[in-house]
């Protein structure tokens, strides 16, 4: 799994991940409170400036952003048709600004740093007794570890369909995929327990 992180050493890369996330939360709140298209347009320009600091170039940036930009355009056009041009402009600029701020943070923060922030943020959850902070790091690792195996299994089930001349259907693909994958849970859990990774009584 290749992350959307971009290697680099800009000022944004060096900021602590927690600070960046707190900043994003504050900025997003502010942008939702603003309704003036002009102010929001300024924010959008700031977003473009920030994203440009990554130095990805037009081509690479376009490839990373196009799918999501399209969604924003569709929603803006929809707003234009049903509401008013002012509303549409506000929606458009607000989403562009938010989207670029968030994409910049994603690009300048490594997965490891994010996991560290998530683990810290999850500390209060330990009080609920449902899950510990280190469990979250372990669970994220497990998903990334076993994803390629799930994909291989999916391919094998699809191939088995073709080999038997059957048309792949959602039901006949999903059911064996789920059963074959979840059947490993007992042994994986036993291995984790046997290694004493999660402290237990």
């Amino acid at each position, binding site marked *: 799994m290749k992350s959307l992180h971009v290697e680099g050493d800009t000022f944004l890369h060096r900021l602590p991940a927690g600070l960046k996330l707190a900043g994003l939360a504050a900025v997003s709140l502010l942008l939702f409170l603003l309704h003036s298209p002009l102010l929001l347009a300024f924010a959008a320009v700031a977003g473009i400036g920030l994203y440009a600091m990554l130095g990805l170039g037009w081509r690479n940036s376009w490839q990373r952003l196009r799918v999501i930009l399209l969604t924003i355009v569709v929603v803006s056009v929809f707003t234009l048709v049903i509401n008013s041009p002012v509303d549409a402009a506000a929606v458009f600029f607000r989403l562009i600004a938010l989207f670029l701020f968030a994409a910049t943070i994603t690009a300048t923060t490594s997965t490891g740093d994010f996991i560290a922030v998530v683990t810290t943020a999850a500390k209060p959850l330990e009080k609920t007794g449902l899950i510990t902070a280190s469990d979250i790091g372990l669970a994220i690792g497990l998903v990334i570890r076993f994803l390629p195996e799930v994909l291989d299994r999916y391919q094998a089930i699809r191939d088995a369909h073709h080999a038997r001349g059957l048309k792949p259907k959602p039901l006949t693909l999903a059911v064996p995929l789920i059963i074959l994958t979840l059947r490993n849970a007992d*042994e994986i859990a036993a291995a984790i327990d046997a290694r004493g990774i999660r402290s237990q009584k």
Partner: protein
Amino acid sequence: MDIRFEQAEARFEGRTVLHPLTLSLTERRIGVIGLNGSGKTTFARMINGLVLPAAGKVSVGGFDTSKDGDRVRALAGFIFQNPQNQIVLPVLKEDIALGLSTRKLSKTEKQEAVSGILARFGIGRLADRRVHELSGGELQLAALASVLVTRPDVLIMDEPTNQLDLKNRGLVEKTIHGLEENIIVISHDLDLIGGFDRVLCFHEGRLAADGPPGDVIARYREIAA
């Protein structure tokens, strides 16, 4: 290392899978054989506390598996049949380090322990590799490293060569023979355990034979016939 079973019995969904068993294991290399469903895997899992006795008691180094699970697991490592399910993090060195996560060690101490154990099994070059890309033999060596990095006193292996091709089987067997740790190996591979100090043979949930490899393997052949 002293492993004791005192009238220990295991049940699964109301069925007795291991009848009350009393024995003490102190030899350095012990083999466990038996037909499929004979109770040998349950026996092995009871040593590590993965299966707790329904009656009686199992202890490792004086610690009761039912009461001191964490201590027992630190003393007795376990290697499963399918190494695929044993390595749980995406990058090999991260996974090996995971076993040390509950120990109070500095970052450098952990790194040294990880690179040391990988070098010992000749897989240092795989440290940064994604686990998904490793071969079956490499995975089984990685599984050994992931367990031995915590320095257990005894290592229990459940058919460690079962899923390997001939070449990888040879590699893993050579590694097992070279281990300095106390080992308990469940295996269908009679050549592997032929040179061990003691062999146990299970049949229908009971210990059918116990002693030097030659005698026990002969008894196993009678049962299987």
